[in-house]
């Protein structure tokens, strides 16, 4: 049996917003009944991108995470809905019935991911349909996935082990978006933003970056080691939130330096100057 899902590779997302806009083009002011009534021209984001600036000048990254309906197996919206107004199809897609869901504003707050929107004109809650109306007429993927230029969004049948999504899922470390919500989300992620610690190492006695300084980072149950690059920079990516790490910088003939850092946020420690022993 067909079971649809989406795999989102955050590292591949360039935040071009093609997914966001393709969704608007498909749904704003355009009916796809019985799957969905028209989306209002403005204000809904059935496919959205969450921008998260990381680090500080001059070490900055922006994590951009596409977020849409997770099409949960334990969907709180289904549990909350009256008269079966939200249902999961056999192919896994969770649909809000536009007729039955009338006046059920509480469904907006039922979703822990905040991806259900209120349509005041129609008096209905609305969300991503995975473009079921297109899939049902032979389209291979939803509009957002089709418009994605990098393969950051992959859609397919996870019951078909030859499908691209199945193959990718088999070889990837899959994550849930906000796993603490515990809704058995069908949509899976790769590379959700964690925390980084980065810094630059220079010699104190001249204007030179230190290449090949040994930098270690340790925490409870964690240890990693890199060397600085030609710019004297080092970076540890993928660290845990709110964890205390110790960073140690060693270079032959120079005094070893270490810092204790808590990853409440991404941390660029700035330039560390090494002093001769």
């Amino acid at each position, binding site marked *: 049996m067909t079971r649809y899902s989406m795999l989102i590779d955050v590292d591949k997302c360039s935040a071009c917003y093609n997914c966001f*806009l393709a969704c608007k*083009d498909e749904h704003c002011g355009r009916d796809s009944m019985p799957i969905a009534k028209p989306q209002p021209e*403005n204000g809904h984001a059935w496919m959205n991108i969450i921008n998260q600036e990381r680090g500080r000048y001059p070490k*900055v990254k922006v994590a951009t995470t596409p977020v849409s309906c997770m099409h949960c197996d334990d969907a709180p919206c289904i549990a909350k809905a009256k008269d079966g107004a939200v249902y999961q199809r056999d192919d896994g897609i969770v649909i809000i019935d536009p007729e039955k869901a009338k006046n059920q504003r509480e469904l907006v707050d039922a979703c822990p991911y905040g991806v259900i929107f209120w349509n005041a004109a129609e008096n209905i809650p609305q969300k991503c349909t995975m473009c079921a109306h297109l899939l049902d007429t032979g389209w291979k993927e939803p509009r957002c996935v*089709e418009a994605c230029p*990098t393969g950051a969004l992959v859609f397919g049948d996870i019951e078909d082990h030859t499908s691209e999504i199945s193959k990718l899922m088999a070889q990837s470390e899959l994550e849930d978006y906000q796993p603490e919500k515990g809704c058995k989300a069908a949509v899976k992620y790769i590379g959700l933003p964690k925390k980084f610690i980065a810094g630059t190492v220079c010699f104190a006695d001249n204007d030179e970056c230190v290449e090949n300084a040994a930098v270690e980072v340790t925490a409870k149950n964690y240890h990693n080691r890199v060397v600085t690059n030609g710019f004297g920079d080092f970076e540890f990516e993928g660290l845990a939130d709110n964890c205390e790490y110790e960073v140690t910088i060693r270079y032959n003939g120079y005094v070893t330096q270490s810092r204790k850092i808590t990853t409440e946020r991404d941390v660029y420690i700035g330039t560390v100057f090494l002093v001769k022993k």
Partner: protein
Amino acid sequence: MGQKVTTMMTGGGPVRVCVEDGVIRRVYPLVLDDTDAKEWTINARGYSFSPPRKTTVSPVVLTERQRIYSESRVKYPMVREDFDPNGARNPEKRGKSGYRRVSWDEALTLVAGEIKRVQDTYGKEALTGIVSSHHTWGLIHYKMSSFKRFFNMIGYTQIFDNPDSWEGFHWGATHIYSYFWRLGCPEAYDLLEDALKHTEMIVHWSNDPDTIRGGYSGQESSIWRVWMKKLGIKMVYIDPFCNFTAVKDAEKWIAPRPGTDAALAEAIAYVWLTEGTYDKDFIARKAHGFETWAKHILGESDGTAKTPQWAAELTGVEASTIKALAREWARKNTMLACGGRGGFAGAGRTAFGHDWARLMISLVAMQGLGKPGGNFWGAQMGVPSNFDFKFPGYSDPYSNINSPQLADHEMINPVKQKMYRNWFPDCILNPPFSWLGEGFCGKSLEQQFIPYTYPMEGCSEVKMFYRYGGSFMGTMAETNDWIRAYQSSKLECIVNQSIWWDPETKMADIVLPACTNFERNDISEWCNAGGYAKDGFCGNNYRVIMYQHKCIEPVGESKSDYDIFSLLSERLGYGEAYTEGRTEEEWIKRLYDLSDMPNVMSYEEFKARGYYIVPVPASEEYKATPAFRWYYEDRPCDTPDASPAKKDPATADKLGTFTGKLEFVSESLKQFTPDDDERAPMAKYIHSWEGHKSELYAKYPLHLISPHPRFGYHTQYDHSDSDWLSEIPEHRVVKDDGNAYLVARLHPETAKDRGINEGDIIKLFNDRGVVLCVARLTERTPKFVIHAYCSSGRYVPLEPGSPTSPDKGGCVNILTSKRAMSKNVAGFAPNSCLIDVAKWEGK
């Protein structure tokens, strides 16, 4: 339900269009099928890379449906309510007054009558007209086609375009490595394969590939960056803004103070010279005047060594970082990517940006221009492609309805008088106005030095202005002057032929509604500009030639540009001289016949299928000719480039400079402007005339940089507050007054010093004007930089019609200086702009 699916080409990629009952249902990317030509494959470092079997579009293209049916469409011919051609014209009311709807008959009579009156009274030169930089796509209706034929036929004062996107390369690079036939930008043949095979590092200098998109290439290069990341190619970004590509893949971001990039370049050369880490053999073979230039860098000629410490003081980049950059660059196979297509970069749009461009080429030259993996590549072009298949780009000779190949009779403009776009207001308000150069100087270096004065001796000043849509308020410099010019009584009549109520449309006396490319038939190729941008389609993973099917009837009473000009021609008494009796369809067929299309697909099949993918030879048969490899290897040029030097076997292995070499001391500048100390024969850093060493800095201590926009295409697709694009938080933010304010980015400490919080409405200001934006506090700019994209499509003056009014549309070019790049250079320099910012307390 009546449903049809057709094909359409846009400035941001090809699409399919689903139409239901005469209304557009959806617009979506072209996905290829098994009957289309096979994709290419590049084998590099143990991997095989092929593009997906689909085309990509720029994000803006996915809003086509919305902008076609936008409330801001001009639906009917309109006349300003207080414009009376037989009485008071009230030019000072332009921009303030409303409009009354008129019939096409009345509008055409009025426009034709005014053209005739003005030309009969003052001479043909009293009429002028200009189109915006980017028109809707399609060769028959394009600005160089229907507009040009009409105005050449009736005669008009042509307004030279300035190469506003790549000024520095146009006016500077041409004097060190030539490529004037590409307006200063380099060839890029087969450099994607070269990079994937051999490159270890790319230095993006003022380059944001994910935003610039090769100009017209949609998101085609996005997937290349995924591949390059997989191969571990290091990315360095040099840009005062940590741009949208940099935040994703920069190993190192370096943020020089705007306008000091040339100093940074000189310091890199200093490191290479003093450490001996440059390609001495290549320089010995290929450079002219290198020793003289080296003395300048080392301080032997002017007493100032261009050391990293010297540059650190100017640029704000640590000397240690400059040295590290120079050393990394020298020891790795490095591509220099200084802007889309090689030169479309903000640093080239600063005071003396021509010398930054020359220094960029100097640096590539020092590492061996054209060696495997080390080249000059904007990282947005250079896929394996089929360069033999003939189909014209919009500036190619046989691409337009005024070309002698396509028309029976080519129309030649009898008027010799010229104006210059960036200084149009000065020409109107303070003539005479003089300048050097023809704007786009693609025929020869000499064109850069032709002196012009407006009005030309014996000619009338301009009395009538025929504008074609668009918004120079958002793209030219110091643009409150445009309001002053528009309200001048010297302009007796202003016509605007436009699709939308663009900012300048609201300044016209008579408005003619034009339709979009979705409302007419046409023919074209994706990203094929031709001419000066020959083979630009190699920025696309597929060559796509398209029959552009009319999807819907024109909205309201709008008409195609060709139809409007045909009707005006009749009224003006030219009969069928304009159309030659041909319909739109007959012109399309004629163009098809002149191309190679008939060899591969019948006209009927082409129309039915809608597109053709030009096949690329299989990888084992494909013969790559990487850009500049011929030069590096002392061979005659073997790329498809149209270098004039290629025509003579004696010069075929040389560059197009006077010496055929890389001229570190420019012989062309020595000949044309020997005494110019601003664009001197030898490139050098000079303090910006509006920068941290200028007097104005005490009053306005922040640099405004305004690069090409990410969520607009010049002013296009940025029409109204309710646009989907206005919901993208990196573009605009809708505030309580319903206005979608443009995002201006500033460092949190800069904001804190001024009491500004995230999301506040702030004013960006200097003596030239006030623009209201929404504050985005970010670590992506240094403290001394404000970043706000140029090319706002909206101009919303708080006091309509006032040239001193604050604007809440986001036209930050109101703040930029119109001053010429340097004294003999007619380029503009909007990224040399000082401002301050403050919380907006007004209403």
